[in-house]
């Protein structure tokens, strides 16, 4: 069971959180202008990587805040936790 460090409340069990999928998939500003294909890309297509994943979580049964997590999808190791709305967290060993 994951232990996730809510940026506000600190480390809590996975059961208190909700998972929100891939992070940094922003709502296109001009949705109405997009082609069907581009809209489908936003709506459905996900990178679903094997390895490091930037993803959204919400502390449902705690402070109710959304935040982002960098987790390795092969080991479940969590590398970083950062606030919603901030740019993708860069890890020291990653090319920018």
């Amino acid at each position: 069971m994951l232990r996730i460090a809510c940026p506000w409340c600190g480390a809590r069990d996975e059961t208190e959180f909700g998972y929100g999928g891939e992070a940094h998939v922003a709502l296109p500003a001009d949705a109405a202008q997009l082609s069907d294909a581009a809209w489908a890309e936003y709506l459905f297509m996900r990178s679903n990587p094997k390895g490091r994943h930037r993803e959204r979580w919400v502390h449902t049964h705690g402070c109710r805040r959304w935040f982002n997590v960098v987790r390795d999808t092969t080991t479940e190791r969590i590398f970083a936790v950062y606030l919603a709305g901030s740019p993708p967290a860069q890890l020291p060993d990653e090319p920018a």
Partner: protein
Amino acid sequence: MSQPKRTDAGGRIDRLRVLRFQFDGRRYQGYCGDTLASALLANDVHLTARSFKYHRPRGILALGAEEPNALVQLEQGAYTEPNVRATQIELYDGLIAHSQNRWPALGFDLGALNDTFSPLLPAGFYYKTFMWPASMWLRYEKAIRRMAGLGRAPCLPDPDRYDRMHAHCDVLVVGAGPAGLSAALSAARSGARVILADEQTEAGGQLLWERYDIDGHPAMAWVASVMAELAAAPEVRILARTLVSGYYDHNFVVACQRFDSPRSSAHAPRQRLWKIRAREVVLATGAVERALVFPDNDRPGIMLAGAVRGYLNRFGVTAGSRVVIATVGDDGYRTALDLASAGVAIAAVLDLRVRAAGFLPQQARARGIEVLTGQRIVATGGRMRVSAVRVQPFAGGTIREIACDLVAMSGGWIPTVHLFSQARGRLRFDARAGAFVPGEAMQPVRCAGSVQAAWLLHEALAQGFAAGGAAAQACGLEPARALELPQVSEPEATAADVALAHRGERASRRKQFVDFQADVTLADVGLAAREGYDAIEHLKRYTTAGMGVDQGKMGNANVVALLADARGEAAGTIGMSTFRPPYQPVSFSAIAGMDAGELFDPVRRTPMHEWHRRHGAVFEDAGQWKRACYYPRAGETLHASVQRECLAVRRGVGMLDASTLGKIDIQGPDAAEFLERIYCNPVRSLAPGRCRYGLMLKQDGMVFDDGVIARLAETHFLLTTTTGGAARVAAWLEEWLQTEWPMLKTYCTPVTEQYAQVAVSGPHSVELLAPLCSVDIRAMPFMSVRTGYVAGIGARIFRLSFAGGLGYEIAVPADRGYELWTTLMGAGERFDIAPYGTEAMHVLRAEKGFIIVGQETDGTVSPIDLGLDRLVRSDKFFIGQRSLARPDARRADRRQLVGLLTENPHEVLAEGTQLVAAPCTLARVAAEPVPMLGYVTSSYFSPSCGRSIALALVEAGVARIGQTLHAPLATRCVKVTLTAPRFVGDSDEVLHG
């Protein structure tokens, strides 16, 4: 007489406390401190089970968790439990156990015919036969199923109590043998919060039955002093009888604690599941002994040598009177020496090694024990109990038969690396130990003692001290000062040559078991390899080796070694099959804990629940909520009650408990802008004091939830949601607000629980309410809201109605809900008021053509499909908007909401009935698919219309209004006419029918 195999003295049993028990109907006695296995052996009972596949007689083989044979059915009736290892059952007075998987009796089992036919039943035989004729498989299968399985499931609900407990610690130590104890001690002395868990009743591990001295005293004295110190330490928790079963991610460890005998007391749980979050873990899980592979190596009376020694030293039981010891290392000699000291005759020590020159072999020889080296067992005799072994030098030569009633085999030791591996730790093959040992760890975990193939006691102690200290340090604690390692005297022992364990007689036609539990033989391994199932994971699945109750604790090591041989590769290159939780089986009840019975899932009740109950309401489940469905009067059916309730609303006044509706308070300068984006209909234009029906879409354009938007003030809104949608919608709003539009100053607060809400509906509602209200409700326009008092209670009054027609909804703080309800019921007596339930509410709203999200919608229905396109505004952005422009959302032949009238006005179609173009029935399964045009979403008998009405989603339904379709039923077909989805008009006039 009684307990013929009990020694006169010794062992960790209380000879003053005699316990009576029964096995297979026979009465026996044992002592407090016994296990069922030790007590049976004390009574000279070896035959305890029949094997899984061949139903071969089997005896007790091991001392603890690794036991593959002696599984029994413990207790009876509701308390019965199948497949329990006799080696792990603490004896108690009155215990009743039975053998399993035999018919009619353990001694005479017809299933043993399988053994006779075994040439036809090699590994995987079932894949090759029973294919013809195809229709017969179910029959074959029935017979196979009856032969398979072991014990029996109880027929009654588990009567016991269970719970789960969370725990947090700095250092969790698993195993209270010498390594675990020293680890716990050094961690505790550093001030760490320590949990020490061991599955046994007592701490000590192998020291419980090995004869070592520590600091010049018997080792158990050291154990006692350590336990005393740990027990006194404030931050140490000792969990005895606690099996650590699973090691999951982020150092989350699950353990199951047993409290007492199967009949637990009324207060205490029978078992407790611990859920431990440890910063650091030390695994000191020890090792189990390896069996030898030789022909007919499974006869009762053939045991592990360590186990034989354990039964002697821990329980004062001699498992035989004339013993052959077969060993591949010096350890077997310990058993010989201990038995000899207890006066048991040693027929011979059979050492498979060519040379046996160590200290222990010398001692054995010095005691006059015959030692045969370079020999192996080529056959065994005896049916229900071993009676002799035949031995022969590896090099060939004469076969000698040695009579015996016990064979103690010592094949070396297998480190218990299960938990380490579950923790994603990598395993490494240790050639010296001939076994897999912990390699690189992937979580904060350390190992100590024989789990690392450190076979010597002083090594175990030293590793434990080091691991415990390092773990505490990793938690940021100072290492304990002045930790002195205790002094140990132990004879040196040369390591076992484990490769010999499976390198006995290959030519024999007799069965040589590698996995006793799954009845897998050496020949099976060979066959699988030949057929190409020669990777360990394929071999496991093809032969089922390692898939039994013991998960191959003993057998897997030999399976892997034999497979390596078959492939001509070095041991260790084959790998191991995956270790998975649990380390040992854990009862389902323990995992469920208190989440059983009424606590399985919370029930939510409204503030008025008790009133409904007292007034005979029949409840229905809506998510976790209990909602009053209808209120039958004496003798009334569902139908009659609902008809009456509906008419009360249409003609007089009725009252519905609407408290379960979700409610969300929205405040802030940008609240209107926010909701404008959330709802597909306009919100900004809503005037304060007014309400509007609103639809929310998902991003894919499909209806997600609906409800009323009330604008309480310029910057203050109250939304209602569906009962089931309350939490979903609140989360949805927060998500958008926080992640997409944090710049919008808006605060959302779920207030479902704060308000009790009552819908007062019907033409008399105004007369009923007006005198009780502090505001002039007659002056309230349709779809408006006011704040005031109702019956002296601070309230919000909404003029709106889901039932259609005149109606109000009153919301008061939940703690006044009951009072409001009873007051209104009292005041309503004059008007013959009737409480109405959800069923009547459904009929009433269907008459008006109002949808229910989840009934008219299923996640694939857009507002356009529902005919609500007039609500959808194109001149603004809202969630789901773009998706409504996709080609599929614009298709003319999408399913659209319509009304249905059956030809016969008394025919009420079942909801879920499908609609087709040409008449047909469901009686026979159609050969060719019949195209479906839609289906019935809601269907009722409408008292207002005096006939049945229905709503349906139908392909291009709006264009078909006026046309006829067919509703196929089981044996007949009903003609239906499509209408607009509304049956009763604004002034309650009937529109069709």
